[in-house]
């Protein structure tokens, strides 16, 4: 790096960066987007392969034949559930005991921060029932979990039926080396969260629950099952978990193996896997799946009850039975066989699943993109921020030089001490104000819901969402800079420099933990962040900035998501969905510990306000 220590060459480099800054930024941004789009093409996307030896070569013979039994269990369960209006705990206990399991129940209760209008619940209390199949001649050090989340509606009866039939079948076998826990949770994910917290004896979300009476050691893997019909046309698999966590790729490979073996039709994101990756059609279809996965992962919510297991380092995925209008259908035996095969292979595991990838993107069920290949996309996008920051830094530097050079001090003494002092002082107010806005956005909606309901004719959930939007919008109107500087240009440049670095750091960190979220936010926020300045077509910039704010990104993502699912939204529907998504985001933060809401309100929103501030710098 003699380049940097030699002032002459440094000046040349600086001049290059300054002169070519705009083209370089555009190039970098385009390269980032292009790289991402290129991920679906074969050199970058690879075929999946099983890495875990213990699950690899040996095949198992599935013997499950309890289809009738499963349907009978499902019918009984549905009838009892209809009669009692809740989870038929006593019936489940009796049935599980009759198939030879060690049965326990766990009751839990949770008062949500505000009423959940999507699921229609507020004060939740329920009971989880679980039965443990004890592996013979093993000391209960390891276990596997098969779980069925039961919501308030009458879905998932067939899943419970299949779970019980599988339990009965598994109980008769002698090859188990790990205990198997059959878990039926009430209030779907809330029940799962309560059970997991009690199992690990932690309290993350303020759930009240009774302690567990029976345990089965360290859980190695879990499969969640959702089935609502006696026959299925396909099985959809969901991998995205809480905060964008993903299970080990080997678990998905395992599922795919048994899909192929049993001839089942398996989908990812509801999309069939394209067969032909050589022509353009395959990759295009893969791009659709990939975008859907990015959107779902970015949302950071658990897409199925498996998502909550991932926090505890339990590899898990959700299988959903889909019953569409396709002609060829599979009965419960086929699904049961796939599950039996998966459990027998998981039973072979000698170590936790760790061989394969934990960070990946899936353009198809049998194709993946590894982290080494997708990270450059977001790297290119963040480079734009870096280049822009460098340019600003140099401009500030040169301006300082320009002031001082007439004084003729020999050597590049510390640049601009007086002017920088002014710049820093002027930065304090906007930084503090925007952070305070973020804090208000995070705290006030839930805290102030009762005040809002007293003074306005709205329900609590509406109050929260509307307060959220109100504070969000109010942030734009606040006067940010109270300080008047002698050199106005230097003020906004310093502020923008700080904001750019702040944004780059945040996006970099997010992209490392949840690539999809980082990439999505970078795609939208980076160009306007780079453009924002108080000169030129201000209204255009302002419009662009509003359009790329985190909330607008969320709205846009909703439209894109439905578009990709081939169920486009109208504007009004989109707005309703947006409001619901806001409420869900806040709720999921409080009930499951999802981090998207605090991340946006405490991190990205204040940062975005800084750019808004730059734009309207006086």
């Amino acid at each position, binding site marked *: *790096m003699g380049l*940097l220590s030699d002032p002459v060459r440094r000046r040349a480099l600086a001049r290059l960066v300054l002169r070519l800054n705009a083209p370089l930024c555009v190039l970098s941004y385009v390269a980032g987007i292009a790289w991402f789009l290129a991920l679906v093409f074969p050199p970058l996307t690879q075929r999946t392969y099983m890495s875990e030896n213990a699950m690899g070569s040996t095949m198992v013979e599935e013997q499950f034949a309890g289809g009738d039994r499963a349907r009978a269990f499902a019918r009984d369960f549905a009838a009892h559930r209809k009669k009692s209006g809740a989870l038929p705990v006593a019936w489940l206990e009796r049935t599980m005991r009759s198939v030879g399991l060690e049965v326990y129940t766990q009751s839990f209760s949770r008062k949500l921060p505000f009423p959940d209008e999507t699921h229609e619940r507020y004060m939740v209390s329920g009971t989880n029932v679980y039965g443990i199949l004890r592996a013979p001649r*093993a000391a209960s*050090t390891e276990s596997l979990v098969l779980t069925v989340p039961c919501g308030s509606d009458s879905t998932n009866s067939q899943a419970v039926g299949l779970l019980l039939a599988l339990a009965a079948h598994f109980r008769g076998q002698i090859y188990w080396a790990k205990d198997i826990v059959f878990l039926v949770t009430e209030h779907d994910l809330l029940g799962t969260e309560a059970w997991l917290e009690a199992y690990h004896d932690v309290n993350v979300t303020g759930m009240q629950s009774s302690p567990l009476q029976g*345990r089965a050691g360290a859980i190695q893997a879990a499969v969640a099952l959702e089935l609502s019909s006696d026959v299925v046309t396909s099985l959809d698999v969901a991998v995205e978990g809480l905060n964008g966590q993903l299970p080990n790729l080997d678990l998905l490979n395992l599922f795919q193996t048994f899909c192929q073996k049993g001839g089942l039709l398996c989908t990812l994101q509801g999309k069939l896997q394209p067969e032909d990756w050589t022509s353009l059609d395959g990759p295009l279809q893969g791009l659709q799946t990939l975008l859907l996965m990015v959107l779902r992962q970015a949302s950071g919510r658990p897409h199925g009850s498996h998502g909550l297991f991932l926090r505890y*380092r339990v590899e898990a995925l959700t299988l959903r039975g889909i019953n569409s209008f396709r002609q060829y259908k599979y009965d419960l035996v086929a699904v049961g066989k796939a599950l039996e095969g998966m459990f027998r292979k998981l039973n072979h595991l000698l170590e*936790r699943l760790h061989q394969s990838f934990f960070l990946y993107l899936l353009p198809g069920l049998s194709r993946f993109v590894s982290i080494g290949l997708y990270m450059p996309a977001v790297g290119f996008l963040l480079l734009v921020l870096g280049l822009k920051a460098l340019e600003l830094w140099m401009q500030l530097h040169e301006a300082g030089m320009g002031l001082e050079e007439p004084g003729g001090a020999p050597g590049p003494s510390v640049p601009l001490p007086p002017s920088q002092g002014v710049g820093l002082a002027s930065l304090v107010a906007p930084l503090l104000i925007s952070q305070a806005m973020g804090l208000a956005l995070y705290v006030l909606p839930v805290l102030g819901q009762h005040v809002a309901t007293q003074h306005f004719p709205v329900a609590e959930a509406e109050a929260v969402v509307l307060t959220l939007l109100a504070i969000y919008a109010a942030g734009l109107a606040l006067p940010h800079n109270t300080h008047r500087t002698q050199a106005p240009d230097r003020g906004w440049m310093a502020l923008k420099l700080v904001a750019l670095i702040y944004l780059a750091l945040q996006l970099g960190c997010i992209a490392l933990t949840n690539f999809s979220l980082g990439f999505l936010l970078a795609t939208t926020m980076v160009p306007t962040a780079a453009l924002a300045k108080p000169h030129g077509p201000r209204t255009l910039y302002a419009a662009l900035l509003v359009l790329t704010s985190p909330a607008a990104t969320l709205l846009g993502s909703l439209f894109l998501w439905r578009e990709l699912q081939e169920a486009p939204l109208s504007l009004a529907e989109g707005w309703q969905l947006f409001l619901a998504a806001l409420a869900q985001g806040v709720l999921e933060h409080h009930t499951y510990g999802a981090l998207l809401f605090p991340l946006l309100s405490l991190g990205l929103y204040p940062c975005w306000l800084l750019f808004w501030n730059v734009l309207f710098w006086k």
Partner: protein
Amino acid sequence: MAAAMPLALLVLLLLGPGGWCLAEPPRDSLREELVITPLPSGDVAATFQFRTRWDSELQREGVSHYRLFPKALGQLISKYSLRELHLSFTQGFWRTRYWGPPFLQAPSVWINLGRSSVMSSQGSSAPLSTSSTPPTQSLPLPPSNPWVWPMTLTTTFCAMLCCRGRWSAPKTSPPGRSSCPVVPRASLISFHLLQAGLSVLLKADRLFHTSYHSQAVHIRPVCRNARCTSISWELRQTLSVVFDAFITGQGKKDWSLFRMFSRTLTEPCPLASESRVYVDITTYNQDNETLEVHPPPTTTYQDVILGTRKTYAIYDLLDTAMINNSRNLNIQLKWKRPPENEAPPVPFLHAQRYVSGYGLQKGELSTLLYNTHPYRAFPVLLLDTVPWYLRLYVHTLTITSKGKENKPSYIHYQPAQDRLQPHLLEMLIQLPANSVTKVSIQFERALLKWTEYTPDPNHGFYVSPSVLSALVPSMVAAKPVDWEESPLFNSLFPVSDGSNYFVRLYTEPLLVNLPTPDFSMPYNVICLTCTVVAVCYGSFYNLLTRTFHIEEPRTGGLAKRLANLIRRARGVPPL
């Protein structure tokens, strides 16, 4: 962990009848018995016991002729001046809550090596202890070497035993007694040499369809007479298995020898002086009509065992009438009325242990101790041996029962030494009546050196079970019926000696994941990071420490330089 354990057959190191000397009466004898007990959960436990007794001073007499006593063990005793040896291999976990207190408490064998040392373990593992007399004569191997015993026993039993770390002794155990903390995955291959008597039933493929399997060898000296002037050696070989009623009996609780072992008894062992089968026919209800055994037993026997009154039917195989009738004896038990109570009676003391928390940095070891006795509190001695790589924070030790803090009356803690000895924590805790006591202690997971990880580091590391020793109030004393029928003066002494029985329980072993590096990468990662760090650090350091001078363009020629030289010599600033 059972899957990986190649374990073949019961150790029955019986030698065939060698030189049978009729001139003098045999100084050794073999007795065998089988106890079949229906467990509260409906499962059936079968316990075999083969006892060989030899009236011989092995260590004093130069014995070279062995008859019933296995020579391999005899030589072990005489060579190492062994005092006692107990070794057990267990696959599975005795589920006290459903099966009641265990009959054969996982043994503790002691080794006396001139100082105290400990070995013990459970799970699919081998509790092991040995005990030898203080080294009076020169021992062939240095007694302080902890590998001696595992190695010797390994060769004798074809088992893989390894014991990590130094041995240590709990304070409450008698001096000179000790056991080794964990032999996490013992593998065992042994032989079965004799097929007669009760051992006919030991058919491998049936024994390995059980839910619990524990075999043990115990050697100890016993006194020949009351004054103990001379001793005999006793070798007990035991095997206990628990048959899963659900698999074996298709959900019914009836059983028969044939259904469990796929064999029947045909003859007594020709070498045995006693050969008996005991069947527990205790009924939980008062009327005696609930079950029926076939063939009807000749005698019955009553006793209070583990605090409950038990009735046993006795079948003596040496009784010729028993076998001669049909040339085979297939004992069957049928429930006339299946016991209707779904929930089996819960024993007064049971325990549960687990690791709480998530993530790879910290965690918490929690032990739940249940006292289900309706009105009596009793103390429990809890012994925990935790490997050093879980760094315990002793200040976080909390014991709560019924929501209140429970102060233990005695605590002994011996901190771990890295790579040398495990933590040892011993507590005497009073369990209030009808309560759950939670003992929890936080720990931090240590980073091991990368060569210290096991070949399967992502499997996790085992933490040995805690050992609970307690005098548990017996069921007999808890029954109000007894109070009514017993003489009045009995109530003056409510806590008599007979009202307690000693129980030693083991909790589950635990599996704890430690932070594990990705072993495929170290070299690449080290090279890459070193390069990156070197390049960045070097250039930044360079940039930060260098002082910069603007180099004046060289103007003026030789004349100016000369002038400057002169000026410098004069001490005036140069041009």
